[in-house]
């Protein structure tokens, strides 16, 4: 009999040769099935052979190794990682949103159902909209896109808004460096997102939905479009959701290469076909969102947590996590890390566990110098801060942010001054241009950091930089300009020597300023 072999079709696996491996396996007579990625990205392409004991994994397989693989030659080498479900990287995690990712074929609706899919939607159809929203409120689910706003409150606002037309918009712009969980979920288990959006629509009275998916993700675009087609064909979407008589139509829209379109109002402008310029709030999108109608805007991972919340009840989800951060978070380990990938765990896990235990330190083998948590607008943290628990409030208190859960590791060759400069440069390139502190301030920021690093009137330029950071933090319309000072200040606070500044001088500067490097108020991601 032909062996059944699973080869991920996930973009990350494909980027290191998975398609070639799949083709070679097929040519060698194997039955190839394409799953998402298990998230053990350092092992990609991770090929799994079905056996009586379970799916046995082989790491970093190349197309030229297909014959030895099928012939059992790799079995006694360290390339064989054993039964994948029993791998310690996975068994230590708590996979809720990612339960099916890497396990099933992404657009196989029967497999989705067999693995617990659609149970949440079926239950939602038996409840009143207000009760569906109550389950989400009770779950304590907060927005995973960065701001951590309670999903239930947002939904209740849309539910009680009076309008004939309401929308559900999924923010799948995922522009942050070091984040890829939205992409992996869409590529590995797209029906979870479709189901979550449909539940959101039923709960709020919306009849139309859009997924705003970035153009940098061609694989995800293809998979999601296919999943939407299948969902229509099987009556999950369309005029009568699962035969209920309730309508929900869903469309995938592709971005056009603009980081700021991840900001929700800018995303709505873009969905309307316009320049992606940030809108002033109020009005909030829940009341006046897409085309001026009440609109739910949620991140991919927020919406993807909803089916489980409905299937098992809000209380079950709320039982996970710590403090006011309930449930699980999908952390993404990236950058210079030995074992990069996806770690889904309850909130409260420490940065140290993520970087050292899961990540295994740096890929280069050199000491860790810093991690940047929460994307390009997040703080750089030194190893002395690694015992910080992953918790929205604890991070905010420490002058940092959890953001979308990205953890980017740097070794000791990192130049913190150069990264601070880059933060300003990125803001200058990606600013929507609507407000002056961000548009002009970021360009000035690059110049001031250059002067500090060159030793030109260093003292007065440090004061100027702090002043600029305070202006951007307080005066920007959105968190693009408002949070760019976060990486800059944290870099200066922890590694002043990378700016040519002696640690004592840096202390004096930050102490003298009311807006010290630990301040995160104002301009917080809305």
């Amino acid at each position, binding site marked *: 009999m032909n062996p059944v072999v699973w080869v991920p079709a996930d973009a*990350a696996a494909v980027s290191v040769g998975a398609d070639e491996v799949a083709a070679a396996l097929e040519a060698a007579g194997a039955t190839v099935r394409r799953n998402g990625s298990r998230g053990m990205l350092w092992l990609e392409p991770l090929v799994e052979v079905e056996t009586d004991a379970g799916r046995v994994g082989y790491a970093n397989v190349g197309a030229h190794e297909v014959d030895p693989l099928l012939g059992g030659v790799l079995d006694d080498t360290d390339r064989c990682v054993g039964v994948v479900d029993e791998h310690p990287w996975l068994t230590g995690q708590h996979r809720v949103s990612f339960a099916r990712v890497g396990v099933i074929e992404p657009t196989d609706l029967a497999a989705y159902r067999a693995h617990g899919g659609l149970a949440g939607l079926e239950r939602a159809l038996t409840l009143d909209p207000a009760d569906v929203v109550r389950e989400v409120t009770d779950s304590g689910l907060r927005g995973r896109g960065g701001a951590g706003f309670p999903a239930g409150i947002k939904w209740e606002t849309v539910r009680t808004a009076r309008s004939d037309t309401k929308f559900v918009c999924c923010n799948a712009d995922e522009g942050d460096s070091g984040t890829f969980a939205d992409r992996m979920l869409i590529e590995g288990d797209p029906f979870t997102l479709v189901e979550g959006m449909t539940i959101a629509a039923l709960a709020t009275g919306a009849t139309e939905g859009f997924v705003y998916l970035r153009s940098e993700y061609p694989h995800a675009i293809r998979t999601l479009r296919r999943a939407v087609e299948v969902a229509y064909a099987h009556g999950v979407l369309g005029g009568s959701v699962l035969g209920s008589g309730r309508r929900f139509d869903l469309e995938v829209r592709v971005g056009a290469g603009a980081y700021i379109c991840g900001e929700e109002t800018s995303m709505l402008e873009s969905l309307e076909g316009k320049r992606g310029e940030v809108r002033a709030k109020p009005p909030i999108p829940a009341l006046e969102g897409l085309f001026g109608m009440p609109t739910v805007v949620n991140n991919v991972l927020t919406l993807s947590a909803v089916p489980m919340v409905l299937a098992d009840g809000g209380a079950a989800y709320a039982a996970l996590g710590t403090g006011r951060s309930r449930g699980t978070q999908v952390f993404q380990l990236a950058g210079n890390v030995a074992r990069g990938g996806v770690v889904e765990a309850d909130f409260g896990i420490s940065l140290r566990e993520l970087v050292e235990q899961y990540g295994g330190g740096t890929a280069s083998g050199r000491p860790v110098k810093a991690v940047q948590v929460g994307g390009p607008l997040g703080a750089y943290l030194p190893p002395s801060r690694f015992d910080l628990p992953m918790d929205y409030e604890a991070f905010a208190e420490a002058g940092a942010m959890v953001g979308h859960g990205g953890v980017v590791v740097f070794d000791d060759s990192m130049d913190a001054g150069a990264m601070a400069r880059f933060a300003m440069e990125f803001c200058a*390139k990606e600013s929507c241009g609507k407000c002056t502190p961000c548009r002009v301030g970021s360009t000035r920021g690059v110049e001031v950091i250059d002067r500090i690093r060159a030793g030109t009137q260093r003292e007065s330029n440090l004061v100027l930089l702090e002043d600029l950071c305070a202006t951007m933090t307080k005066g920007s319309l959105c968190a693009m300009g408002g949070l760019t000072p976060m990486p800059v200040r944290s870099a200066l606070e922890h590694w002043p020597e990378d700016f040519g500044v002696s640690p004592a001088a840096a202390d004096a500067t930050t102490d003298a300023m009311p807006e010290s490097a630990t301040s995160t108020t104002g301009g917080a991601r809305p």
Partner: protein
Amino acid sequence: MRQRGPSPAPAPAPADPGRAAAVRALAEGMAPMRGPLLPVLQAVVEQHGFVHDDDVPVVADVLNVSRADVLGVLSFYHDLRRTPPTAHRVALCRAEACQARGAEATVASASDRWGGSTDVEVGEVFCLGNCALGPAGMLDGALHGRLTPERLDVLTEGWPA
């Protein structure tokens, strides 16, 4: 920061006569969509490689918006190119996670190799969602991970200098 107004790039040669009709038909087909302007311009890029200056009045006319509206959207998005694409395109990620893995060396090697080339365009992107397997890049639209200057050379063997 995003550009305002027309592209500073040299205006492309006049569009061929059939193009206006093709763009018009495309825009008319998409006009019933909600918020059609951006999708129409994306479709023009997809089918014709770029948005020609001569396409602007056509799209404006069909969608009943001003030319300024079209130019405003055109100048905002990185993907909406206004000059013909080159034979090959390299887009290398320069965001933090890829920098942490040495992306700048690959970027420098690519600019050395193709700087000034009319056949190969080297661009930068900020995150392709492949941050655990960086440095990442797109070569003619295909995603690659674990890029080094050497691997880039292997993957683009035979490309013009």
